């Protein structure tokens, strides 16, 4: 037994045996199910093919979620029950309050700005000669990781004293125009806005691609009828295009909101979450993995989960409705 568990070769043998056993079990049950006839058959089939997926979901998603919930009511080492103390800490600790305030700003501003920019861009380039080139241009940042984007924008925002030669792009422009260099990442509360701009930069391309596809699906006859009725470009946009692509707009907005709630890479690389730029996800990481306090870390995870749930439900229902309309 100890050979199997505690030596590298033993573990390898164990892994192969377990793997072969699972495969054999699956093939055997599939074969048995095939023999079944009549009413029982479809039920068994559902269980057979849906079962493993359900099991994996239970092990990989449901169990950890319940465990996190349980840990959020326990102390730092998950040994004794502390009630709501961890949640109280999140809402009372001055750093926690700053994180909540900033997270709110992120979740409100990022989806709105990214979607607005993506929508306007999609409308402007629609059916133009340079459409595909223009699209790739805005879509490119999507291919950059958040950490990469953070490092790039750190250089753009870099600050040097007024007497020094500016090394940051933006400050170089400002000084060239005769202004004083700005501490983009250091002066709160504006620094949070400059961090949000980085996420908008990466997410606008996503919004643009989805919305551009939706705009192309707006029926031409409706557009032409409206034009014949004397509608101008603005009226076409607000009365025909936007209502027609509303379901896509909702999906884009909610998807970006969910991504924003999880963001922590950008603050971590650009300001180290200093200078009042802390956000909930980064604070959760610090408490759980740097300070080793599972209680407070889990409470923050649960909080983020609660904030995401309504968005996910709305998103799913909207998608289901879209499918019903199309069908």
């Amino acid at each position: 037994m100890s050979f199997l568990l505690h030596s590298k070769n033993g573990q390898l043998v164990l892994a192969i045996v377990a793997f072969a056993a699972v495969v054999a079990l699956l093939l055997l049950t599939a074969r048995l199910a095939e023999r079944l006839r009549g009413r029982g058959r479809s039920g068994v089939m559902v269980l057979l093919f849906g079962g493993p997926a359900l099991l994996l979901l239970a092990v990989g998603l449901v169990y950890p979620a319940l465990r996190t919930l349980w840990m959020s009511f326990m102390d730092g080492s998950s040994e004794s029950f502390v009630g709501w103390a961890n949640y109280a800490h999140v809402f009372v600790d001055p750093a926690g309050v700053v994180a909540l305030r900033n997270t709110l700003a992120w979740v409100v501003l990022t989806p709105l700005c990214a979607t607005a920019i993506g929508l306007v861009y999609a409308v402007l380039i629609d059916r133009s000669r340079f459409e595909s080139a223009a699209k790739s241009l805005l879509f490119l940042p999507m291919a950059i990781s958040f950490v990469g984007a953070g490092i790039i924008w750190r250089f753009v925002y870099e600050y040097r004293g007024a007497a020094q030669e500016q090394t940051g792009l933006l400050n170089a422009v400002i000084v060239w125009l005769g202004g004083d260099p700005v501490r983009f990442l250091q002066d709160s509360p504006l620094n949070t806005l400059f961090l949000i701009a980085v996420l908008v930069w990466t997410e606008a391309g996503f919004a643009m691609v989805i919305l551009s596809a939706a705009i192309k699906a707006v029926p031409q006859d409706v557009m032409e009828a409206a034009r014949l009725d004397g509608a101008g470009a603005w009226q076409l946009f607000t009365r025909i295009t936007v209502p027609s692509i509303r379901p896509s707009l909702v999906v884009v907005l909610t998807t970006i909101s969910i991504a924003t709630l999880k963001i922590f890479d950008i603050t971590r690389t650009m300001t180290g979450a200093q200078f009042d730029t802390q956000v909930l996800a980064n604070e959760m990481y610090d408490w759980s993995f740097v300070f080793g306090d599972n209680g407070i870390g889990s409470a923050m995870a649960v909080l983020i989960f609660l904030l995401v749930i309504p968005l996910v439900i709305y998103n799913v229902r909207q998608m289901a409705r879209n499918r019903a309309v199309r069908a």
Partner: protein
Amino acid sequence: MLVDEEEARTVIVKTTRARQVAVVVAGGLVSALALSACAGDDLGGGGGDATGADCAAFEKYGTFDGETVTISSTISDQEADQLEESWADFTECTGITIEHNGTNEFESQIFVQVEGGNAPNLAIFPQPGLLSRMQAEGHLKPAGADAQAAAEENYTEDWLSYGTIDDELYGIPVMGSVKSFVWYSPAEFEENGYEVPTTWDELMTLTDQISADQGDETVKPWCSGIESGGATGWPATDFVEDMVLREAGPEVYDQWVNHEIPFDDPQIVASVDRAGDILQDPERVNGGIGDPRSVATTPWAEAGLQVLDGSCSLFRAASFFEAQLPEGTEVGPDGDIFAFYLPADEAEDRPLLVAGDYVGAFDDKPATQAVQAYLASPEWANSRVSIGGVVSPNQGVDPANASSDVLRLTLDLMQDEGAVARFDGSDLMPSEVGAGSFWTAMTEWVDGRVDTEKALASIESSWPK
């Protein structure tokens, strides 16, 4: 006819299924083997191929036929190769194979490994805080008698105290660095007739002298940066720790680190203010970059590079700043850049702020203890130091073996009998403070958003009850 057809179909179905099974199982085997091959790569090393080593020196460790000792650490890449090279003769002569597994994820993985029953035999902990956490959870074994005897012979009490828990020696320091250094340009010092200061007052006089001689809007005597991604603030906490050792002394330092006095004790306030004499004076920082507030957003190593440009003359940083210098930089008393000891109030007092790696054992098998004893010996320390890049606080190391002038200077300080070594306090404090509120409060203090009293009071209130 009909029956035949039915039979034939069954045969075909059966063979197809058998083939499917064979394919799936074969696929599984291939991927499992590929995985094991990768694991084999990771665990490689040990062995060594040096031949003809003189085995007499290793007789005292005994011989072990075919025994394997595993070591986990944070040491990876080139440094890991150098580490494995350092014990090649030992493994050849004793017959012990050492499997070293170094990973950046050591700090989180070691707990997973240990709790999963997969503990290595030895681990090299990058700081004593981790060692004592491991000991508190009951996973460590005290060093064996030979290792303990070797440690007591070769290390100073200061260094051993950080590996000692409840009067038992668990961790033995293997490699270390000294943080109390000021980097400067020897050429500039010679040109202007500056002398390396030996007391704090001389350092401040020199600062003002440089300011008067060269200071203008862009050139200042000092440069500094404390930005370091998710760990922003640590260089400022090191600076403060060095000041506590100088302003209040090692005894107060110990009380402060162990929270026997409040974090915002008046002596600590005075120490932070002393750091502020440099870090918050617009006449003294931040050469080549901006005003004192710019210290908060400048990457720490980038600040030091200003010494090479001549935008500043003095930069406080640990011995390992050498690794951050551009290739081709000459480091030495006659080179482009060199370091001097950050002086204390009196020239006779030499408090050192240090950091280092400690090796601890998870079992008490004879082979494990033999390796731990070897790592505590001057033979290993000299072997490792000769290979280059690092130094060891082992008192038996010959400074001539150091691979650079800065490392030689570090060794001289480590072996200086008048020096008092104290470990980097933020590594010893609870991590909410040492990797949390201390960093944040010092960053806010450097940024000029809070005064000294307020910054220290906020750290005091964050100390876990």
